């Protein structure tokens, strides 16, 4: 029974990774039409280097991801602190209000943002995308920091207060330092969420400003070329690295629903 289970898990992993590995491999194949036999070449990566559109889009994605990470982590941590500090009226309502950004299909949220931003003159483009990404990332930050909060025993702050700390001093000298790993993890999480985000960016992008996933999508619509494989591999490895770093800070069992 044990080995059956392990065999099944390997089958699942094969299912999950084969397409990805095939896609990555074809990025190193010389043929522009994916023809076999396989001949190793890095020409598509070189072409990538000269593809200013993709590079600009990539740069945009990274910049947006960094800004999103910083803003979402700051806002989310503050909210998490307030929500973790015991009960108050309306707390569960507020907690539920954090769910819509991740529970509602992004198609709906994205189109709604498009309508609203157009209507209010905020318009599309980088600022709009950042607004959208931060809104999506905040619930994850609150989740990660909230989980971190729960691992800190309440009596630590009490001990500090018994020794003469005011509640604020106790928070800053005891609780906050212990939260740093969670906050950092949340920032990495927000970064990855923003980097991978497609739907919202798709609706809020302009011809002059796109993010990498949106650009990849446009390229796909025009036709499959190995250059897409190359840039996809880069994006994939990038976000996987960020997530692996995050995994060092939190146990896998803690990461909850993304959608």
């Amino acid at each position, binding site marked *: 029974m044990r080995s059956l289970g392990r065999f099944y898990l390997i089958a699942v992993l094969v299912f999950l990774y084969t397409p990805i590995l095939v896609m990555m491999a074809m990025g190193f194949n010389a043929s522009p039409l994916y023809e076999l036999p396989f001949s190793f070449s890095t020409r598509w990566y070189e072409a990538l280097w000269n593809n200013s559109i993709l590079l600009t889009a990539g740069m945009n994605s990274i910049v947006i991801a960094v800004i999103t990470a910083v803003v979402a982590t700051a806002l989310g941590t503050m909210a998490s602190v307030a929500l973790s500090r015991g009960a108050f009226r309306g707390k569960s309502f507020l907690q539920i209000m954090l769910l819509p950004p991740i529970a509602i299909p992004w198609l709906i949220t994205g189109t709604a943002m498009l309508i609203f931003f157009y209507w209010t003159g905020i318009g599309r483009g980088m600022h709009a995308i950042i607004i959208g990404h931060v809104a999506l990332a905040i619930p994850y930050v609150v989740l990660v920091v909230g989980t971190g909060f729960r691992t800190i*025993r309440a*009596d*630590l702050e*009490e*001990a*500090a*207060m*018994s*020794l*003469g*700390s*005011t*509640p604020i*001093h106790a928070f800053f*000298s*005891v609780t906050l*330092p*212990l939260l740093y790993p969670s906050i950092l993890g949340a920032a990495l999480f927000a970064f990855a969420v923003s980097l991978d985000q497609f739907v919202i960016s798709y609706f809020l992008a302009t011809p002059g400003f796109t993010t990498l996933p949106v650009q990849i999508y446009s390229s796909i619509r025009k036709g499959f070329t190995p250059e897409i494989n190359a840039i996809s591999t880069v994006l994939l490895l990038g976000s996987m690295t960020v997530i692996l770093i995050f995994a060092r800070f939190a146990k896998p069992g803690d990461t909850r629903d993304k959608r």
Partner: protein
Amino acid sequence: MTNVNVNSVAKTYGATPVLADITTEFPEGSFTSLLGPSGSGKTTLLRIIAGFIKPDQGVVTIGSRDVTNIPVWGRNIGMMFQSYALFPHMTIAQNVAFGLERRGIKGAAARKEVDRALEMVRLPGFGNRMPKQLSGGQQQRVALARAIVIKPSVLLLDEPLSALDRRLRQEMQVELLRIQRESGLTTIFVTHDQEEALTLSDKVAILDKGRIVQMGAPETVYEKPLTRFAAEFLGDSNFLVGTVANGAVRLSDGTTVRSASPLPGNGTKVTLAVRPEKMSISAGNAEGNSLTARITTVIYAGPVLSYLLETKDGLPLKLFVQNRDGIVLKEGDSVTLNWSPEHTVCVVD
């Protein structure tokens, strides 16, 4: 080094009264245990004195200072927690210096105090280690150092030894007592372990359902319990129910029992308590009170033999005998129990 007074302190959560009108004094330099089952209110009382909980009514004074409206960080207390509560991201020295820093004592002066405190708890030189490198017992000693280095007015201990295993616990009890004597700190100690309460305290306060049932020196509380609860919670007791008649008590089966306690008027129903170790099996009626009973169970517990017995009327009794000669009696044996009226206490139900 001051006394602590609570006056008419009460606390209710929702519809449940957790503490009902407590008024008592903790004299300067004394070691008082708050003993009781869970839910008795002992921890609540401690936390009210500490300042974590605000009482619904009443006044708390530490020394001559009314601290009822002063939050915990202004009360100058030293507190020890069940889970040690050492700050995991600070070194031992930083932990101990925490309270000093809050009082404006830093640098060399602080270091001197920290070293002295660590020596006092027999952990010299541990300053640079981190809490997670220390064992449970060592962590608790650091917590103690941290609490006393600031020379608090009162030391409050919330079941600090419950997380330690038996041997370690006994060692820490000795340490705690020594340090308390040396420093002369007024100490209030919450525990559910009666042995601990009896061995450590100058005074024991037994709490039940939010009230102090009895408070006094360990010997007094143990030898002369005032209520059935006190007699049952602290140690074991045999209970004999009867009616007062001519200065003695008549049980339902006709036996007369004498008691050294003052008894109410004739005809009143009373409960008498006798501790199992005060009874003995010996020939003759030398001691004053006696009852015949049959042994139902023999429990061999090493240094003590416990016998469970039953009288003809079905009254259950317990007997403790020092294990000098091993198991001499067996199930089914019928014996006569003897005990003195001095050890027969009249308790309130």
